[in-house]
């Protein structure tokens, strides 16, 4: 049996690759790292780039492009937690600011504090409607 290591490439939105590999090259944040089976446990962040996986019994390499993420290495298992979005401190910050501003803008239309009585009245009304419909459904069947 060839000397291989199991590699999983997963992102939050989908499982991208899973299988055995002889050799893996990943674009780590401090430079490219090559990983053979039985590597020491390691965690590192990876930057956008190509992940090269050398499959056993073939000369070809599988290429997977990832836009960053985290690489975890254990002696018999490599896990690549890939990002689905292009990330960066400034980009994230800009998104957060945009989300905040949108909320502030939406809140400007009103000044009152949280009105629990109103909230509960509204909810119980909606709930009563749903329950009434359900009861009606039961009796007519």
């Amino acid at each position: 049996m060839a000397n291989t290591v199991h590699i999983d490439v997963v992102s939050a939105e989908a499982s991208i690759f899973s299988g055995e590999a002889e050799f893996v090259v990943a674009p780590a944040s401090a430079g490219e790292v090559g990983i053979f089976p039985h590597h020491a446990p390691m965690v590192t962040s990876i930057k956008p780039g190509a992940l090269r996986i050398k499959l056993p019994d073939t000369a070809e390499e599988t290429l997977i492009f990832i836009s960053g993420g985290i690489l975890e290495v254990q002696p018999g298992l490599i896990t690549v937690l890939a990002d689905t979005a292009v990330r960066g401190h400034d980009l994230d910050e800009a998104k957060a600011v945009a989300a905040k501003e949108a909320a502030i803008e939406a809140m400007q239309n009103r000044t009152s504090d949280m009105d629990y009585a109103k909230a509960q009245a509204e909810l119980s009304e909606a709930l009563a409607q749903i329950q009434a419909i359900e009861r009606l459904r039961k009796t007519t069947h």
Partner: protein
Amino acid sequence: MAGSKEIRTKIKSVENTRKITKAMEMVAASKMRKAQDRMRASRPYADKIRNVAAHLSFAQAEYKHPFLVKRDIVKNVGLIVVSSDKGLCGGLNTNMLRLSVNQMKTWESEGKSISVSAIGNKGFSFMNRVGANVKSHITGLGDVPHMENLIGTIKVMLDAYEAGEIDQLYICYTKFINTMKQEPTMQQLLPLSGEQLGSPTGHWDYIYEPEAKPVVDNLMMRYIESLIYNAVAENMASEQSSRMVAMKSASDNAKEVIGDLKLIYNKARQAAITKEISEIVGGAAAVS
């Protein structure tokens, strides 16, 4: 034939309504399947990242991430409310919002202040209407949740936690159990408890490259994001199956209403015919 025209129009209109609800039911059924697949697809990532995070939280002695540190005094609470963008999905949002509001009321009575982050239009407009302190929101996610759209909204809350503006972060969403059953759930996101992560096997530590702190920071943020993403994906699956069930019962109800109306229509028609015949017979009897 008094009123038969009105009944006919009524039957026609109920039939049209039924066509729409039937179509919505079928659309929801197909979307539900896709949403469930997506929900399942997000699980391996969450499992993997939880394993790594569990390892880090135990193995790492030199640096403890703020997300893992419990605060003694809790004065400010953050709540992420995950709801659907569109209505017509039964009691899905109502049940979830009721759970949130009850919890918020409890917090308020304990003297804690609450900031809310809303994902989905229904929750956002509700929170806005009742005057909650909405810190950030995202609406119009569509049928496919994308991490990219969620990052900004989540980051506002995570930043607030790190800055000490909130001491605890909760998420409220509808958990998908099966097609017929969805349950509103409240879950604590921050601080992360060790039990939530599970304990790792053995005593060993990773090599960190380039350094422990940035890697751990990165990982923790991704972990929380994946939890929230998971909640959104699950909420979407719940939404579609809840809509499917609601539309199915609406179609069934429409069918029943049509049946009743047809009976009334036929009775009215029969009565009119009987009346006409008896009039003719009566007229003929009077003539002869």
